[in-house]
Each structure stands twice: as structure tokens, then as C-alpha cells.
């Protein structure tokens, strides 16, 4: 019985199960370790920004302080993200990374 159930599903839908990026490693029984700016971006922001929900925010030199404030307060259709979700240190790194980093041309406008 076990055999067939453990086959990988035939991908009838292209890209359906793909994660936005590589999985973020977490050990059983331990809290999620601190994440890099890329990891925070890809596991949260990238599902909206550049994906038809929010505007593209990379490669626009958006000031880090403004990014931090927007994340903590939310804005209009964007929910707020609390320090319990994205730690102060993670957010600091992320905001710097967004301000300084280039655009990702795969991201869509809207």
C-alpha cells in the first residue's frame, strides 16, 4: 500500500507546487532561526510585491526607514507585519537590502 502513495505527484500543473524560493531550514523542536533579507522577502513580501497585489519595491532605492514603517504599520491593502513575525533585526536588514539592491526583472508591475 505504501509504495504508490509515496511516488511524487505527476506535475499536471506547471509550477503549481513550486515555492517562491528554496525552503528555509528549521530543526524540529526549535524556533525558526533568524532569516536573511532574501529569505524574509521571498517567504513574505514576494507573494504580493511583483505578483500583482502590491507595487514592485525592489530596485527603486526606497528609503529603508520608509520600508520599515510601511511594514510595521501596513498600508491600505497591505497588512502590517509585527515584530513577532519579522524581528527588528530581520526588518532592519531587509529594509537596507531593498533600498540598496537591484530590481528583479522577473517581477510583474501592478
Amino acid at each position, binding site marked *: 500500500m505504501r509504495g504508490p502513495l509515496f511516488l511524487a505527484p*505527476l506535475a499536471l500543473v506547471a509550477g503549481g507546487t513550486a515555492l517562491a524560493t528554496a*525552503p*528555509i531550514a528549521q530543526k524540529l523542536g526549535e*524556533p525558526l532561526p533568524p532569516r536573511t533579507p532574501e529569505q524574509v522577502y521571498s517567504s513574505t513580501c514576494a507573494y504580493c510585491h511583483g505578483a500583482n497585489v502590491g507595487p514592485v519595491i525592489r530596485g527603486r532605492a526606497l528609503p529603508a526607514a520608509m520600508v520599515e514603517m510601511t511594514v510595521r504599520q501596513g498600508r491600505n491593502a497591505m497588512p502590517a507585519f509585527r515584530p513577532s513575525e519579522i524581528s527588528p533585526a530581520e526588518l532592519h536588514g531587509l529594509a537596507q537590502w531593498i533600498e540598496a539592491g537591484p530590481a528583479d526583472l522577473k517581477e510583474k508591475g501592478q
Partner: protein
Amino acid sequence: MTVTLDRRGLLGAGVAGAASVGLSGVAGAKPVLAKGMRKADFKGAIAAMRAVVGPEWVFADEDAVRPWRKTYVPDPSGRHAPVGAVCPGTVEEVQALVKIANQFRQPLWPVSTGKNMGYGMTSTAAPGQVVLDLKRMNRIISVDPELCTALVEPGVTYRQLKDYLVEHNLPLWIDVPTVGPVASPVGNTLDRGVGYTPYGEHFMVQCGMEVVLPNGEILRTGMGSTRNPSAWQAFKWGYGPYLDGLFTQSNFGVVTKMGMWLMPAPPVYKPFVVRHKRVEDVAKIVEAMRPLRISNIIPNVVLMMSAGYQLAMFQRRGEIWDHPEPVTDEALMAAGAKVGLGYWNTYFALYGTPEMIAANEAIVRAAFAAIDGEVLTEAEMQGNPYFHHHATLMQGGLSLEEVGIVRWKGAGGGLAWFAPVAPAKGNETTGQIALAKQILGRHGFDYTSAFAIGSRELHHIIALLYDKSDPEEEKRADACYRELVAGFGERGWASYRTGVHAMDLVAQQYGAVNRAFNATLKHAIDPNHILAPGKSGIA
């Protein structure tokens, strides 16, 4: 350095004024303390909480609490804004916080990941509460690849759980609500949320809980409190009265661990959509679907998405309709036809071996051919973003695309879900649609909806979309929602779930004896009423 804000960015900033970006969506009025509490009690509670979790994890001033006040639901008077937040990292800290709450009579509002979007996020049912934010408790405690089960803490997101399964190459699926990346199995299940694989009814596949009771004691449900709890995630019922239900949509305890069943990845997964052109077609779709769901020939939670809802995901209202009156069905049908949508778009999937799928596909195709449905698959729908979205959801894939609907009515970000339940019978749909359009129309809102069939029941999921940056429209949305609850209630259609802004009102629909029974339980379990007063109308 010069900064270019795009038009929408400027609009957003403009709403709140230059100094404070994005106050729209944050309750304006100054929050008040809980009934009977003095300032000194609040200060005492906050100081004691700081000693437990560390000062960096307690938030009590206006500015610091702001991330917990953001919400999409209407709250014109600001009465749902919390007064503080505390973020424990362990079960022991939760126990200590509950004791402090009793000592100072400071109510706590527990959330897991706090992304209850369109139901209140981390805002609270009654004023004066401190959010007990469990997001830092994000340990995946165990995953059993043989029993296909997991035990997780409240702060574990669906994305975290999926990452774990992918990293360890475990052929198990998760089942997500539409907004998986930032939401959690614990928070979603405790509000009795749904997803779209065969494991979509989340409370059905929940197994075993650890709960911190209002007196600080730890209760483990089911097999969890026996000497050898190895069957904790295998057997739901334990012995004696089944307790887990008491901790869903309630305020009787703080859930600190939850067991769940995971679906083994099937060898083949095949998603479908059936297109129907006319509004009234939904009655016959429900009639065709019911026997297929009850017999499990179609095994997943099925969605019948209206053109209005689907269009709102990727388009703005002004692109389709530029009148203040509600958008007409004709306009929606015309806009939908351009992007490959019918008025109703029914999404379901088949899972199993190629032989199983072939056999069931024949049955399903015959059932929908009989009601003039266009049955389409990846072969015809490749590149269609709506099909792709639902094909992602029906295999537990992660997406936030659907949050786009919150921008339908304007940038302001306003959404309140109204979700009345009926039996899965076609004749129930016609009256519900007419009533919904009538009430929404009276307040100038559009009918943007979906129907879901879990098994024998029909959820009518109506997204009340409004512009929250317009205070007048926010008031109108609030009034409209209340009329929806009352108007549907009169016809015997009550909601399966609601937001913090309407919990008492929905509780009234379930009758005086139910309310009194819940109140009796509440008083016995939580005599000081320190846990989430007002949740589900239980005060």
C-alpha cells in the same frame, strides 16, 4: 536621494498625511481600557508582563501597538483596537501571563499568526484587551511520515511547515486557506477555517491539543494526557466528552500545541474548472455537485467562484464599471468572457492513481455535460491565471494573489467576510443571491461572492469590499454588514464565522439557550473573564 513613489503609493501616503504613512486601516480613536480597569491596573499588568517575557516583547504605547491595530474590517469608532501586545516564547511564559491577567483583571486576546484578514486580524471583539501574540512560538514539534501527522506550535505558518516537508523530502501535502504563506494551521483551525484539498475541512483533520486554561493549568486533549501519549496525533476522541471543539471559535483556553493530519501526496493530481454562463446556473451546479461530494467521487472542498470575485483579484473596479451603482451581472459577464471566465467557475480536482482518475473523470464529465457545463482542464486553460490560482490551492500551494480583491473598491483596503451557511441544495442559492444583492445594493456595494461545498453544506462567501480610507464608506460598510447578518438571520441563514466587528450580532442568530450555555461554561472556566471577552459573542 530622490524617491519616486508611484500613484498608488502617493494615494496611500496622502490618506494619512505626510508624517505618518498608512494610518488608513488603523482605528483612529484613542483606545480605552477594559471595563472596571484603572490605569494603575493596566500599568501594573504591563510591568509584570515585562518581567516575564522581557521588556522588548511587551508593547503598550500608542505607537508601539500600531502593528496590532491594522485591520480591514469596518471599525468606525475604533472600539476594536487593542491597548497592548505581549509576545511569549514558551508555554511557561503563557502560563505566567495568564496568572498576571487574573491578578490585574487585564483581558488577553490570543492570536497565533494574527492574519485573520477580513475577520479582524489582531484587533479584538471588546475594547481594552492586550493581544497575546503567539507568533514567536513557532516550533514544529514533530512530523510522523508513517502516520502522516504533525504537531505544531501556534506561530508555525503554512509556509514553515511546507518548507520542512520540502527540505526533508517528505511526500506529504499541507492544506492551506487561500492566504497560506503568512497564516497558520493553529489559527486557521481554531477559527474553523477551510482549504481546498481533500483535507480542506481543517477541524476535521485536527488531532489533539495542548491548552493553557484561564487558571494557568495545562490541559492535553484526547490521548495527550495518558502516560504514553504516542497515539495523541492518531486518535481524536480520547475518552469521555470530546473537548477539542470547546477551544475553537471560543474563549475558554489558549491553545499552545495542535496536532494535525497531513495528506499523503497522491500519485496524480488533476484540477478542473467547469464554466457556466448565467447567474441562475448556480442552482443546478449545486444539485450536480452534491452527490459527487457526498460519495467522495470529488474529494476536495469545491469552490464556485463568481465572475465578480474572480475579476476583483487582478482588476480594479474602474476598469470594468465607472458608475457608483453596483456593477451589473451583464458588465461582469462581459468582462469575464474577455479573460476566459464564466459567471460561475467551479473548481475541483481528482487525486489518485491514473486509473482512479480516469474512472472518476468519466462520471464527473457526464454529470456536468447533463447541465451544460463546459468542463476544462490544464489542456485548455494553460496560462489562464484564474485556473492557475485554483490549481495551486487545490494541491495546498502557497499564494497571496487573492489579496488583490481588497483593492477592488479603491486603494483604501476594506474587506469584511460575510459567510452564511445553508444545506447544499440548489434552491437555497437563488433566494440568498437575491437577498445579498438587495442589501449590498442598498448601500452601494457590489456582489462579489463564491459558494463553497464542504460536503453536505453550502457556504455562501460574500466579500464585502469597500474603501476604508473613506470614513463615510467605512460607516456604510459597517451598517451594510449588520443588515446582511439580520436579513439573512430572519430567513434562517446564519454565519459559520464572523469578524470581531459583528460577533455579538451573529451569536444572537443562534438563540438564547445556546448563548446562555456558552456563558455558563465561560463563567465556570474563566471566572475573571480574562480570555478574549466578546469572542463569538461570549462575554
